[in-house]
């Protein structure tokens, strides 16, 4: 049984979604900039050096059929290496930058051990089952408290699935016999902004059979105290109220959760 403590807010830890947004923005800005420069430069030169038939033949060393191929050297080759060097600098800085971010995402924020809630996610054709630390299981909908780091261990009982929520920017392969790990957290401010209950769509991101398209689920984040109340009322048996929801956009309201918890 865990004894959740409210995490310090305003410290330096960030949700995966924020981290993703930052690195995505950096890549997108840089990619757009470089792409625009290269494409514009290319288009401009192609236009400039189009064959309009009124350029003189002097200095134009046209190739002939049957010559052994030679390349062009000289100033162009120098330019080639300069451009290559520049692109190498950009690419290597990106690798280093991305590595720094990776380390953060892999480790997750530091939390006290007892603050973590670990949930086992098991994919099956075609839905998700969640097992809480006390052995309680739900299907379709995962209910977790705000302000906590939620660790998920993801596996599958049949074929290869991928558990993911685009809004939370989390994703994990669900492979039979393997356990892949990930984490997420939602702040209480976010839960309040969504009216006391934040819901996130879960989808399967790996083709898993005929029902792949409909293999959706939901992550519901509720305030700490509500969650504790709900959790205290659960036991190691399957939650029959949630059993029927079976993956397809279970939309349990906060009231229903309390009812279950009562």
């Amino acid at each position: 049984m865990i004894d959740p403590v409210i995490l310090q807010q305003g410290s330096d830890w960030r949700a995966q979604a924020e981290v993703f947004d930052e690195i995505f923005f950096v890549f997108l800005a840089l990619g757009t900039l470089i792409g625009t420069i290269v494409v514009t430069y290319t288009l401009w030169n192609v236009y400039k050096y189009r064959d309009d038939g009124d350029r003189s033949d002097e200095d134009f060393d046209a190739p002939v059929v049957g010559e052994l191929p030679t390349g062009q050297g000289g100033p162009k080759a120098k330019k080639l290496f300069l451009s290559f060097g520049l692109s190498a600098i950009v690419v290597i800085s990106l690798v280093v930058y991305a590595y720094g971010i990776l380390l953060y995402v892999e480790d997750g924020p530091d939390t006290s051990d007892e603050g973590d809630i670990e949930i086992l996610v098991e994919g099956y054709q075609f839905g998700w089952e969640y097992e809480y630390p006390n052995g309680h299981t739900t299907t379709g909908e995962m209910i977790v408290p705000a302000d906590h780091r939620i660790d998920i261990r993801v596996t599958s009982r049949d074929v290869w699935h991928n558990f993911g929520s685009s809004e939370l920017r989390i994703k994990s392969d669900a492979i039979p016999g393997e356990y892949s790990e990930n984490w997420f957290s939602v702040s209480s401010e976010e839960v309040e902004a969504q009216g006391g209950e934040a819901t996130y769509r879960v989808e399967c991101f790996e083709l898993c059979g005929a029902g792949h398209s409909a293999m959706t689920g939901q992550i519901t984040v509720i305030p700490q105290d509500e969650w504790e109340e709900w959790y205290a009322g659960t036991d190691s048996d399957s939650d029959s109220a949630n059993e029927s929801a079976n993956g397809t956009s279970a939309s349990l309201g906060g009231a229903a959760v309390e009812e279950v918890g009562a």
Partner: protein
Amino acid sequence: MSELPPTTSVKRWLVTTNHKDIGILYTITALFFLLFGGVLALLLRVQLWDPTSQILSGLAYNEAVTAHGLIMVFWFLSPFGFGFANYFVPLQIGADDLAFPRLNALSYWMYLLSGVLLGISFFQGGTLNAGWTMYAPLNVPMYTPSIGSTGAVLALAMFVIGITASTVNFLTSIHHSRAEGMGIMDMPMFTWSMLATVWMMLFAFAALLAVGLILASDRVLGSVYFSATEGGALLWGHLFWFFGHPEVYIVFFPALGVMLELFQSFSGRRLVGRKWVIIAICLISVQSFLVWMHHMFLTTINLEIKTLMMATSIGISLPFDLVVFSLIYTLIKGRIQFTTPFLFAFGALLLFILGGITGVFLGAIVLDYEFRGTYWVVAHFHYVMFGGATALFGGAYYWFPKMTGKMYDEFLGKVHFILFFIGFNAVYASMFLGWETPRRVYEYNPAFQIYHQIGTIGAFLLGFSFFIMFYNFAKSFVSGPDAGPNPWDYTRTAEWAVPSPPPLENWPNRPSYASGKLEFVKDYVPDGGPAMKTDENGDAATDGGDSHSTHIREYPYWDKHPSHASIWPLTLSLALGVLFLGLSGFRDSVTVTLGESVATSAITVSNPVYPALMVIGLVGLIWAGVRWGLEDFYAPPTEFAERWPFDGVEKVKLGMWFFLASDVIVFGAFISAAVFIRYNAGWRTWEPLTESLPGLINTFVLLTSSFTVILALVAAHRESRKGLLASLGATILLGFTFLGIKMWEWHHEIFEVGVTIAANSHGDPIQASIYYVTTGLHGVHVVGGLLIALFLFYRAYQGAYMDDERPVEYFGLYWHFVDIVWVFLFPLFYLF
């Protein structure tokens, strides 16, 4: 040997072994598969129009997704490039044909018939629906039970067998038959790209063949590799992507080669930093084998390896940067002609730049975590792979005049390009905008509907644009103006120095670059006069004389005509196709009930059609193989040629070495699979299944047979027919002894111990599967070797090999290889 009928005869196209004919067959067949895969894509796009409506069932949608991917990647992209490679690589290197013309025809027919098998699989209870990546364990019969799923897997295996033959052929040709004076750095860029492509294919497709054979074994024989929870799913991922990532460059490089040619041909400028572009291409080819786990960042691979793979993946963009900059700078100060081929090649560059930049995103692990399984990936690889193929369409317009002798319609070509380019970006750029949609899903988040609708409109525009191309080509072929030998202003490569289309044996006389430019050399003049040189500067006006003659050229310095026709490649492929069709339904129509021994076991046949097809196919295969071996087919050796780095290696021997190199990878993959699964299961928890004594005896038997093969070679060298027969006979007997002991061992395991391919009375079933499948693959190699040995024995009995012992030597190479493999298998399965 039979004579080659004229091009108007249907028979010619069934028997031809000429590289240009086969190039045309490849091109047309690939375009057919473009239509096939394209129609499937349109089905998907129609379904994606509205996420709430359902036009296709879930299974039908998945089948269309799978077949679209498989067809476009395997049956369209690569073969389309290989069509041009078949036609133009021999011309660009100054060869008469590929090294092994019959093998080339065999590759084509296997390609076509494997595609036919894939088509048939739709009618065998539905084709495979596990995606083109076929992730395990969805790819095993428990989750994809239809016969058609097995049919599709076997179709792919057959395709890969044909591809392997083609790879060996191109490697041997390029390394063995380059005209005098054409060093390896002097090869035209298209040929260079193809060389890099086939080197990658040699290793990558061997891995795919291995993983395909294991999957076929799971599906047909009932082994349990990919359903094993001891890493079975990850094993698929590793083996598939070890092939899968190089495959991206394998389909892109032919297109890159076309771009490198066309940028020069339509700007009048030579490639900037040519040497460095070649080095970059070689670097990419090597590096492509070191990045595969970036397809598996979200699996349980540890962080250190993932980081390494991130660095190599992002790093592989560097050599590409160099190639892209070189292409751009080549155009500068040129006289760029906006012909249709150039527009397509230039469009391909723009699309590839976009695809490349978005690919760097995917290399960063944190971004990949979110992009994994989304339309970002779909958009990215379409920009790279289909964007590359854009250049291949440029190649089609560029070489159409050479292949047909007619000029296409420039206006229609430009209309095609404009519609193509708009349609392309509408489809795939919209995917970037709606990237949060999961792949292979049709009930997507309605917020992204607008992007998917733009995509659907673009897809139809894209599809329509190809009808303009087909119309253009058909009309121009019938009534286009004559193109002449060289319709372009700034071409350099040798295919433009001969008429359009080139004569059957390509050259008026032996091509040579010894003087620094292409000349046609007469090596021998019947009246004993001095050797003559025919100057050739490539202008249409000077392209006269006997280069216009289309009759089969005389070889004054050789007393035999080269052969150009054989029916056996087609026959052999047909037999293999029938065998594989039979195999696809084997499990559903044959039930084996094990009793106490063989005598009390029963085989129940519920549907005789599939077993009958298997028997017909197998008999046909052996028959066609023997006829192939007996046929008097003459492919002349190239007397004067550049062969670096394989100087002094005879043609067939070189081919044999290439084949064995790919077989090393096949066995390497099987052994890696065994080690990987065992490691995941806990290495020490497994004990050897079998007694070590039979294995030890078999090791000695095989090693002795290696010795007798050497004796056979020595006897042939000494022209001792008796000695040859005796030592070949001993080899054959030892081979059968090996198989006999093997059969006893298997019988013992199955009936007395209770270990079958899918069940293990002592432990994990997967251990039994690995034992039977790996040693079984080796056994199949032994059987194949014995069949060849029997053939050699028969021919030796007739008195062959006395003046030319090379076939015995090449068989010996193969046989030694099979023995060496056993030396690795013995400790793995009998000792530890």
